[in-house]
């Protein structure tokens, strides 16, 4: 097992290479470009036996991937921000067609204003498209999750597309020591993609045909929902296998850190989780029982795990690096709704933080935990707070 100093983008490219993706269709967009450049290198150097379709837009990238997957090829693409938004029509299409396309999305703010920095609004706003969504905390996790995603997505009882996210610059451009699993290890873990039904001249069929209200549309959509529910166990099973092979795992759907006896817990997705772990250890040293619940999977949503957390932790802060202009950030609304059925529900506050790449520092995290303790003693101050916002001077 060779360790290398690489950044999140290269990790994603290694994931695609080791997974032996056969068709890549991708369009460049900051800060994802190094992924597609590295994949182009792998293909040109013969390290990847793949076809690279240099499409003219992200929309065509996803169209080409869906088509290639329908022929039975393992596909890979990567995008970010505006590119992901342009793909939106076809994200619905990929899940509806049950094509297990695997993608990496570098989480980047959506314009205007223009911003190439970390923000999860792009991926979160794809929550209704039937794609599985995994959020990485580290470059190593990024590489491993790309490979695991193929095994989950391509299993016959799932057959759903998935994307793994990495925060712009905090992961995509940050070089870290990463273990590159051996090709043989990955080959043993991930069998070739060979779907039962595919575009095949010896067995002609129509893919994606029409169905009227009284016929089968609703039932076909129900199958997608069923598969998404089934994916919860599949993700855990696949991660267990990966752990046996590499010793590495990432906490399943909800990656909890020191929550067993925690009085207050922060829920977070993405790279800031590492900073939070550091702050937790320091506060724990001062006797403060704080914890972290990292949303590793946003789709499928870890409803049961969140409920289990809510049964013993009574003050929860949900960090959203996005905003829905509805009832707060998306992680907040979904965590809160998962907790709603509990007999005595915890207090839940929404911290809207790090929008547009604004840094989530240890100081900020400390402030959040202080605020949660204040809420624990004096009750909820305000349900939603934009943290580190440049506010006019008060009084």
């Amino acid at each position, binding site marked *: 097992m060779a360790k290398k100093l690489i950044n999140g983008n290269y990790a994603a490219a290694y994931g695609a290479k080791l997974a032996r993706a056969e068709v890549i269709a991708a369009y460049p967009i900051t800060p994802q470009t190094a992924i597609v450049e590295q994949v182009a290198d792998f293909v040109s150097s013969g390290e990847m036996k793949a076809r690279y379709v240099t499409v003219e837009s992200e929309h065509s990238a996803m169209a080409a991937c869906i088509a290639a997957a329908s022929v039975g090829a393992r596909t890979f693409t990567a995008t970010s921000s505006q590119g992901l938004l342009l793909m939106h029509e076809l994200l619905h299409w990929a899940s509806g067609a049950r094509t297990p396309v695997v993608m990496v999305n570098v989480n980047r703010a959506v314009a205007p204003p223009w911003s190439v920095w970390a923000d999860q609004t792009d991926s979160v706003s794809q929550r209704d498209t039937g794609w599985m969504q995994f959020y990485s905390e580290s470059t190593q996790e990024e590489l491993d999750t790309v490979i695991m995603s193929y095994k989950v997505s391509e299993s016959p009882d799932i057959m759903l597309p998935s994307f793994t996210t990495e925060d712009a610059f905090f992961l995509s451009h940050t070089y870290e020591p990463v273990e590159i699993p051996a090709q043989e290890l990955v080959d043993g873990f991930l069998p070739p993609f060979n779907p039962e*039904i595919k575009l095949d001249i010896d067995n002609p069929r129509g*893919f994606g*045909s029409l169905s009227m209200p009284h016929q*089968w549309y609703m039932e*076909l959509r129900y199958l997608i929902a069923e598969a998404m529910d089934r994916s919860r166990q599949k993700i855990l099973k696949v991660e267990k296998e990966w752990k046996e092979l590499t010793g590495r795992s990432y906490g399943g759907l909800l990656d909890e850190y020191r929550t067993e006896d925690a009085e207050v817990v922060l829920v977070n997705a993405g790279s800031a989780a590492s900073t939070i772990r550091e702050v937790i250890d320091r506060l724990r040293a001062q006797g403060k029982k704080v914890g972290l619940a990292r949303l590793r999977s946003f789709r499928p949503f870890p409803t049961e795990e969140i409920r289990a957390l809510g049964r013993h932790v009574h003050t929860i802060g949900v960090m959203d690096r996005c905003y829905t202009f509805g009832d707060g950030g998306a992680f907040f609304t979904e965590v809160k709704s998962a907790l709603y059925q509990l007999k005595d529900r915890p207090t839940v506050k929404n911290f809207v933080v790090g929008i547009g790449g604004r840094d989530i520092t240890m100081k900020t995290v400390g402030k959040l935990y202080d605020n949660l303790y204040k809420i624990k003693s004096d009750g909820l101050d305000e349900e939603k707070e934009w943290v580190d916002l440049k506010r006019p001077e008060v009084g």
Partner: protein
Amino acid sequence: MSRPLKSYRDLPLAPITYEDTREAFKTGSWRTFKPQFDKSKCKKCWICWKYCPDMSIRILEDGTGIEFDYDHCKGCGICATECPAKCITMVPED
């Protein structure tokens, strides 16, 4: 795999078809006029067969003429218009 569809359990993974439309859609019901063939005038040029948008004209095995697939013919009248020997006429549906 054309099992009868009764519940979502019978469905394939996605809306992927597995049967053609010959039996399922008898579009012959759309006609108000239908073509009739007079074999005696037929010059066996197969122009009618060539131009049929609905694959509803079959050339006889022995090559002596054609027959209509009234299950599917929509009565558009192209064959009657294009036949150089004028041996196809459109008559009202009975």
